[in-house]
Structures are given as C-alpha cells and as structure tokens.
C-alpha cells in the first residue's frame, strides 16, 4: 500500500460506472491544487517564505510547485515585505499583468498594514493599490502561518464560483481600484 494521499473527489452523484458533479466544483478542485504562485518578496517575510519553499516545510506538496518571478501564467500573487510608495505602481503593474483568475495574499504586518513603518515613504497596506484575498499576520510570520494562508487561498479557490470574477460585485471591487 502506498501512503500517498490523493485528494478526494468533490461531492457529486455517484453510481456504477459514472460520477457526476458540477463544473464549478471540478474546476475549483483543479485550480486549487495547481496554484502557481508569484512571490513578491522585499524583506524579512521573504526570508521566511524561502524556508516555506524549502524541503522542510515544502510548499510544493500543496500543489504549488511552480513558483516563478513572472506574472506569466501565475495566479497567486504573494506579497511579502515592506512596500514603499515608490514601489506601489510596480506591484500594481505586476498584478495587472496577471491573467484572471488571480488571487492575492498579503504576508506579514508590512504588506498588510505598513507594519511598524508609519512613515511618509511606506505604503500602509497593499490593499491601497490592489485587492487582497488573504492576510497573513505576524512580523514576520512563521512558515506554518504562510502555509495556513496558502490553505485559506486554496479553500477560497475551491469554493469560489467559477464565474465569480465576472460578477458585478467583483467588477465593482476592481473598479474601486481603478482596474477596468
């Protein structure tokens, strides 16, 4: 017996020789276990994230194998570290270059709220320029917290309606950030 665990099938109607479920659930399942993260790391949270990627914590076992510093094909933007006001347009451009569906995770106090840097030069939370799905607390958070945040994203992806991104609420949210 292999001890490899395989993800359970989503709820559906099962019978001899067939299995029926909704497209939303099948797509959500597929998306959630093949997230391609784009790490945007600027400071200490990025170092914690490196540990999360390493063999001990091994982010890859959750299906996040393909980390790349390019928005091409990436669907999860992980912002880790202090974002200065001068860097905000860059971060926003990276987000805009990602194709839908896309999710954003703000890791640590700085990305979430500016952290201890209550100054003229630091952006007080990345949600001032892009919408955020999950905030990971801590300064910096431990790898476990980053993994927990990642699992929260997966849960979001799984339960999300396939067409949520075309919904008026989502359009309104993006419009509030000046994104068409």
């Amino acid at each position: 017996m292999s001890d490899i665990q395989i993800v359970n099938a989503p709820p559906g109607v099962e019978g001899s020789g067939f299995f029926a479920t909704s497209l939303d659930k099948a797509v959500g399942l597929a998306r959630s276990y093949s997230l391609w993260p784009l790490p945007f790391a600027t400071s200490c949270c990025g170092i914690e994230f490196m540990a999360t990627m390493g063999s001990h914590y091994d982010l890859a076992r959750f299906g996040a194998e393909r980390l790349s510093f390019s928005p091409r094909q990436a669907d999860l933007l992980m912002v880790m570290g202090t974002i200065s006001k001068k860097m905000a347009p860059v971060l926003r451009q990276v987000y805009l270059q990602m194709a839908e569906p896309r999710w954003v995770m703000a890791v640590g106090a700085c990305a979430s709220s500016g952290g201890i840097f209550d100054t003229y030069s630091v952006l007080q939370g990345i949600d001032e320029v892009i919408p955020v799905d999950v905030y990971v607390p801590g300064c910096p958070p431990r790898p476990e917290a980053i993994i927990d945040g990642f699992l929260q994203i997966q849960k979001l992806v799984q339960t999300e309606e396939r067409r949520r991104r075309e919904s008026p609420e989502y359009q309104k949210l993006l419009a509030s950030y000046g994104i068409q």
Partner: protein
Amino acid sequence: MGKITNEELLQQINEKFGEAIKVEGEPYGLLTIEAGRENIIDLLTFLKTSPELQFIYLTDITAIHYPEREKPIGIVYHLHSLVNNVRIRIKVFVADGDVWIPSATVLWDGANWMERETYDFFGVDFKGHPDLRRILNVDDMTVFPMRREYPLEDPNRVDKKDYFFGR
C-alpha cells in the same frame, strides 16, 4: 594621520579667502568650516584644483535643518583628499524661503545624484543643476520629509504596539 595637518589646511584656505571663511571646530579631528553661498564654488574649486591639497573626492552632499536658527537650512559638503588622506567638512547656511545654492555639478559629476537627494529631502534648490527632480520619493510628493517641520508621532497611540506584531 594625514600628510597635511588641519592648521596647514586652514592656513592655506585663509590665505585665499580670509575673513569669508569661519571655522566651526574640529570635532573628532575633522576640520569643519562655514562658507557663504557666494564663495562656495570658488572654495570647492580651490580645494579640488590646488596641487597641494587635492581634495579630488566629493564624499557627500547633504543638508541639516535647525528650525530655531536664523538661517535654518545648512548644506553640508564632505571632501576627501585621497592623496593626503585628509577630510574636510564645509557648511553653508541659508535662510528659510531663500533656500538655494549654486550646483557643484560643475566640479564633480557625482554631485548630480547627491544634490537631487538633498533637494528631495530638504528642498534645497541647486541652481545650475542639469536635472533637479526627486530621486528617492514619489514624484507627486509635495513636502520635504527630512525638514524638522513635523510633530513627532503621538506617543499615546496603541495601534502599532510591538505585541500586535508578535514581538
């Protein structure tokens, strides 16, 4: 120790500029003099081109702000004579609302970014600078953040205490 003592250095400067140069002191052995904005370029040119002194290396240009003084903004030059291994600090104080000084880019190309930085943080207008824009802060900023014009953070605020960040 450098090959030229502060006394010799000061004597050479005084021979050329006389009363126009005031001496501020020698903290930690670093000769600090105060010049005026009308003779600063002459002074820098003399220090750089003098075959004896050879202050060829412009270490830094920055500024300071003493709000209580009559001339609150001071522009500070640090020069280094690599040949003689001697440093010198030159300060020029200017009045509020009249914060300009001729650019040292005529002597050192390296002054370009230093002056842009000083403009960015202190609002010093370097006349003759080829491209005086903000360099580190966002372009649409309207203030000069390193000036002592802003109240300190409210000591009673609690929303950014260490324990909120797990420390």
